[in-house]
């Protein structure tokens, strides 16, 4: 076994969060009218499913099997922020969430002694994540006309605050499993 128990848990948590992300965007995609945004959300849905596959393969390549986790970051997130009620709110929560994901993966890349296979998986996923942020940002800008620029900004701010709360809770809750992340946060 090439992974510590904590590392295996964390990679499995990433995998579980990607699966939940795929399920979420799949459900959103099927409710939307045909549009450029619907095509992008469908693409996003496919990306998240692929990311889950990348994590499964990465964990397997390191001679382990993923741990079956039902919970994910998104669950706690929606609990704190409240359920999005419309497409703009879905895009706003997605923007905040995607930024958190990139930040999280970026910090993980800085972890000392990171296995090259894990590094490769994170870098591969981050290529897609950058596009996710771009298309969501563009969608929110376009929605300003319909929802009002101030309302869009308020909504993003509301979800950002919830995100900070949930992230702090996650670090506290999972303690040593994500110790390297807490060390990073404290060093700032």
């Amino acid at each position, binding site marked *: 076994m090439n992974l510590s128990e904590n590392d295996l848990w964390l990679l499995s948590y990433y995998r579980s969060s990607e699966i939940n992300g795929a399920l979420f965007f799949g*459900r959103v995609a099927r409710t939307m*009218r045909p549009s*450029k945004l619907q095509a992008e959300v469908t693409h996003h849905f496919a990306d998240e499913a692929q990311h889950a596959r990348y994590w499964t393969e990465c964990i397997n390549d390191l001679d382990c099997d993923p741990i079956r986790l039902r919970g994910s970051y998104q669950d706690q997130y929606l609990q704190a922020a409240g*359920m999005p*009620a*419309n*497409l703009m709110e879905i895009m706003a929560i997605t923007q905040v969430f995607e930024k958190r994901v990139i930040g999280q993966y970026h910090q993980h890349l800085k972890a000392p002694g990171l296995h090259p296979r894990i590094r490769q998986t994170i*870098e591969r996923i981050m290529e897609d994540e950058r*596009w996710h942020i771009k298309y969501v940002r563009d969608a929110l800008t376009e929605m300003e006309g319909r*929802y009002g620029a101030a309302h869009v900004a308020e909504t993003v701010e509301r979800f950002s605050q919830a995100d900070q709360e949930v992230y702090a809770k996650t670090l506290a809750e999972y303690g040593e499993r994500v110790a390297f992340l807490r060390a990073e946060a404290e060093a700032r």
Partner: protein
Amino acid sequence: MTVEAASFRGEISDSYSAIPPQNAIPVLLVASEAPLDARALTAGELTQVAALSGARRGALWLTARRALRLALAGTGRPTDTSAYPFPSPVASLSHSADLAVAAVLAADYDGVVGVGVDIELDRVPDPRTASFFLTESELGWLESVPTDEVPAVLTRLWTVKEALFKADPVNAETTLRDYQVADPAAMRGRATRSGEIDFQYVSLARPRGVLSVAVALSQSSLSQSWKVDPVQTVDFDLMASRISSLISVPIERLAPDATIAELVPDSFMFIEVAVDLQEEFDVILSQHDLKDVHTLGDLAELLQSRQVEQANV
């Protein structure tokens, strides 16, 4: 949408019967080791070959043109190869050793703006040159490749990058490092140039090397105009019918006094219902609006009032 190099043949046969998978872009590949008969050259081709210096270059050019002619004929296109300047939206050429390969789109596709092919036989890039054609993340991935597999991987990625470069309709100022492959380990997949243009590619193992084909996809093909369904006027039966199909509950159970919490206990499912109805009836609801909605009757009233209000804005 994927690129499908459905056929690879040394000589073209009378029929082209490859059936590409759904949504695939079929590309016909033809290889040739023999030169085109100089007596068969068109005026345009004679001008082009006359501009080449050296017998070796001339022979290679004629071999490549023979492959291209065969591929053009096989796809029903005009066969004067001088009419296809490169980079071309439909054709590409490559040669390695004495073998030339032509790639031609099997049919015209609105979204495809370029085709590229590259073949490498009996040649492996020097690993020290990897940083000249791979991006930082691709180099990072290369570190995880077992040492004995690196030469084959480098050769494959070299052909992929060359094929992407040739497929790019505006490649005058680009370098191979500008092209990012989504999954360097994959024999087929997608790639991008600095987020500006997307590509699909496929690599094929050959007995003495590897060959890759790429197609460039236009941005307009990604952001095409969409046919918009007409907006419906809210009525309870229509709303109930949509909810019934979303939550798989018989419509008979969806009376105005049915409570939403009982029908849709899963909050993700409720988001799906809420967004679907907003899309269908072209209205906007907020978290605040939904707090006061308890029954399907409440929901229908809310949608109706919002539709009227928002239509008057």
